[in-house]
């Protein structure tokens, strides 16, 4: 079978990029959560009294019974356990750390939900589910979830 030979004299690659300004609004509940991390180095959640569940990060409504929760703030411990984890093996300029790094689900003492964050101070192959960790807050704050810089093993 004859193959069609393409004329490639004019084939080349154009470099470009797609840069788009984005804006994320943390909302009233999200703002209070981040401001507390930034100014008080405290992790806040909300509690549903009806379901007796504590949610971290906080949210405006209970996902189970739809009760409004934003008036019922609770302060959580800076310590918790790893409930699951993954190791990020690729680098990308938009990622918060250089690979490899650990991204874990952490359930704080007193909370009923886990939330993802970075774990440092341990080799990726040494991390285990159930490991106790504590929060380390950022020296330089950025008005983001990274004002809680990372967790480290206790």
């Amino acid at each position: 079978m004859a193959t069609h030979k393409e004329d490639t004299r004019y084939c080349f690659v154009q470099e470009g990029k797609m840069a788009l300004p984005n804006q994320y609004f943390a909302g009233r509940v999200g703002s209070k959560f981040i401001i507390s991390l930034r100014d008080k180095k405290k992790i806040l959640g909300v509690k549903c009294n009806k379901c007796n569940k504590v949610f971290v990060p906080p949210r405006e409504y209970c996902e189970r019974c739809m009760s409004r929760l934003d008036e019922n703030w609770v302060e959580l411990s800076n310590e918790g356990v790893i409930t699951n984890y993954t190791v990020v093996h690729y680098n990308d300029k938009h990622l918060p750390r250089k690979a490899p790094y650990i991204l874990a689900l952490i359930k704080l003492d007193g909370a009923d939900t886990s939330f993802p964050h970075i774990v440092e101070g341990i080799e990726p192959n040494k991390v285990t589910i159930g490991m106790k960790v504590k929060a380390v807050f950022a020296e330089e704050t950025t008005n983001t979830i990274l004002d809680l810089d990372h967790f480290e093993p206790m």
Partner: protein
Amino acid sequence: MAEYYGVTVEDIFNTMEERFRPDKAEGIDMTIGYDIAGEGGGKWTITVKDQTCSVKKGLASKCTVVMRMAAQNFVGLNLGKIDAVSIFTAGKVKIEGDMEAAGTSAKLFKRFKAEGAEEAEELIRLKCVPSIDQRFATGPIMGRFFAGLKERKFYANKCPKCGRVQIPPREICADCRVRCTEFVELGPKGNLLLLDICYYASPDPLTGEVRETPYAVAVVLLEGEGPVEKRESFTHFIKSSDIERANFGDKIRPVWAKECTGGFDDLLYFEIED
């Protein structure tokens, strides 16, 4: 006195000394000039030295930095009604002198608070410009078009079946679905068919910077052989200062970059030929 958002330019300057934050001014020695245009505007100079601040009318002869902007934008910025980053990138604040000093000056004062206004709850907005690198393989047909730009020429391709001329050229004729391998040169001059004027400050995807508005996309018919109805129109920007005076059928010509490399930005825009 002209008010913007219920506040005059003078209100802002008159309260500057009392809103000054000496704790943020340690080691800072600068003279900041303001040239505020429009109703209620004027010139002011703020001197910050030894952790004190003084405000005087008029522009000092030697300023670390001079900022020029419209009265409405000045008041809006001070009240937090206008976002600083957007207004700077849109070129609506002209800065002469030390850019860094202009940035520093913003931190030296507490925010202006209109009388009786309540302290707003702090809400967090995150702004970022994610930039994703892209690569585009031209292929042999579109590649010919880009190679043409390098020589400041427009290449189109012609359908062997129906005779349509396509620009930019594509592998096959959109009507007949047959390969089009014959190239013809169009333009470089042509006539304006229509303008699409954009007043929304959309970002330029190559930089993420907000475009100056209005800008207009022109649909033009480049000169060429053969019947007009068999020739595709071509779309690109038109020079901003031509937007107002443009009319259907105007003769236009391309304006090229100083150096053409065979890329997206070789053709800057079209302009009306007088």
